[in-house]
């Protein structure tokens, strides 16, 4: 197993509330890794700390053997980690195509001077960005909506668009925050196929999900969080039988 991401003793507090405490996990290259837990267990906080939106109080992330910068989202993306949001966050006034093109920003270099003079490099880069954006839209299956302003897309298509936009940053690790939330059965099945395709094409996936069935069917390994602490980590079939996990989901009276 080749380590891609290693989280070491991540801790995060908000005032008196401990959102994460001593969370460690290792994600291998090429796997789909699940992160589950009841509401408020700290999953999204973990995402936010990982992607630089929050600064952790303790611990660090090591990505590809290099420590990730803290509190600098754009550097995290540059290092090769992209994310989606639980409540879809697209750029409302842009078309689907332009959303994906914006996602390519970090991999392009044209300067203001280049843009002003429209030199060869800038034009070529712009053409490649456009081409690549079309490819990605096709990849997630919404190429026909390329010129639609994104807020007019259906919910499922918006989810796909957000994934395409994240892929445009050319990540090695794609972190999906509840991608199946609000989807119907058909859409969920299609999403599952898409995630498998993404993994097949060499991108490691970190998945937060509520849909236990999806997680169990998709993930190679997973970690269960409860009250900000890791209570289990293993392959799905083992985790499913773990007593602490069953208690967390059912015992405490909290809903799954």
């Amino acid at each position, binding site marked *: 197993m080749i380590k891609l991401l290693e989280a070491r003793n991540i801790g995060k507090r908000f005032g008196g509330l401990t959102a994460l405490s001593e969370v460690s996990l290792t994600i291998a290259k090429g796997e789909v890794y699940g992160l589950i837990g009841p509401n408020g267990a700290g999953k999204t906080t973990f995402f936010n700390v990982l992607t630089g939106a929050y600064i952790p109080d303790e611990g660090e992330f090591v990505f590809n053997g290099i420590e990730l910068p803290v509190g600098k989202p754009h550097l995290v993306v540059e290092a090769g980690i992209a994310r989606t949001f639980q409540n879809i966050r697209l750029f409302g006034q842009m078309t689907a195509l332009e959303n994906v093109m914006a996602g390519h*920003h970090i991999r392009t270099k044209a300067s203001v001077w280049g*843009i002003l003079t*429209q030199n060869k490099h800038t034009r070529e880069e712009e053409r490649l960005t456009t081409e690549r954006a079309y490819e990605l839209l096709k990849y997630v299956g919404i190429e026909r909506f390329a*010129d639609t302003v994104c807020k007019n897309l259906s919910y499922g298509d918006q989810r796909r668009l957000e994934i395409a936009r994240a892929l445009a940053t050319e990540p090695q690790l794609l972190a999906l925050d509840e991608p199946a939330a609000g989807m119907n059965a058909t859409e969920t099945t299609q999403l599952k196929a898409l995630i498998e395709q993404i993994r097949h094409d060499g991108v490691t996936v970190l998945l937060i999900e509520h849909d236990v069935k999806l997680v169990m069917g998709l993930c190679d390994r997973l970690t269960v969080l409860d009250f900000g602490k890791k209570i289990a980590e293993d392959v799905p079939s083992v985790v499913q039988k773990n007593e602490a996990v069953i208690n967390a989901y059912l015992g405490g009276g909290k809903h799954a």
Partner: protein
Amino acid sequence: MDQLAEAIPYLGKRNPKAARWLVIIIALVAPIIAMMFGRTWVRILDFALLYMMLALGLNLVVGFAGLLDLGYIAFYAVGAYTWAFLASPHFGVHFPFWAVLPLGAGFAALAGIILGFPVLRLRGDYLAIVTLGFGEIVRIFMNNLNYPVNITNGPQGINALDSMNLFGWDLAKSLTIGDFQIHSLYFYYYFFLACVVGSIIFIQRLQISRVGRAWAAMRDDELAAKAIGINTRNLKLLAFSLGATFGGVAGGLFGSFQGFVSPESFSLMESIAVLTMVVFGGMGNIAGAVIGALILTALPEILRNIAVPVQETLFGHVILDPEVLRMLLLSLAMILMMLLRPGGLIPAHARYSRPELVGKGVRT
């Protein structure tokens, strides 16, 4: 340019090519027609072009990047005072046009960065108030820096600025060929027009580029923009300094065109006026900024010429003087636009991509 053409009712959609030519022809013959109504109107057109540059620059900051800047006129002031310091009898230095204008633009850009650094972490409405404060501070300094060392000459301002001299050709002098005289106001008009067209081309190129898309992304959702790797701090600084550059250039042109500068020209009301032009025309839209600037510069002048005589005949004296009318018009334009048509006169259907580059259909 295309956006302007597209904005023409009917024609713009049906025959873009004809609409384009129409815009070009109007732009070229406008001063000649205006001259028929008197020299003042050409002067007003010249000012409208300056306001267009300001509106285009502010639109870049407010419309593209989503940063509400209420102190924008300060950059205009920096450009104008740069001209006044370096090309007037005030300090007795007379640098040439091609040296002063870029310097003014550079100082304005620098001022943009200096203002930008501390304030860019602020949220929208706080940013607005702090930039307003910045504009006021600049004005207070212009007003008072005549003591103990006379730098700005205080509220009186600085007179007798050098006129624009394009490589030996003085724009302020009318040209006489035989009996035929071309008034200097024409030269200013076409020179300013060239500047505006240049600005439009530059800004349009920026809009459809990685930078324009990143600004739009930041404006639409800052958190998501960060999550796709956009360095929002640098892009905000870029927006501030580029916007300021336009202000600085316009300020320099203003100073030399008008021949004198004083703090009065750079009051908060002027910042608000430029903002109204952007809002009225349509935020985030190049055509909107141009049309907004044109209408809101010309309309008060038209009102001045109609309302004053009308009032005199009706009431025997002037009840609403032109300055009051202008303020009334601007404030009402701002409120009503926000309430009734928040997208502005020409709501932005801004494009940030050119699918035709890879042979895909053009968006309709």
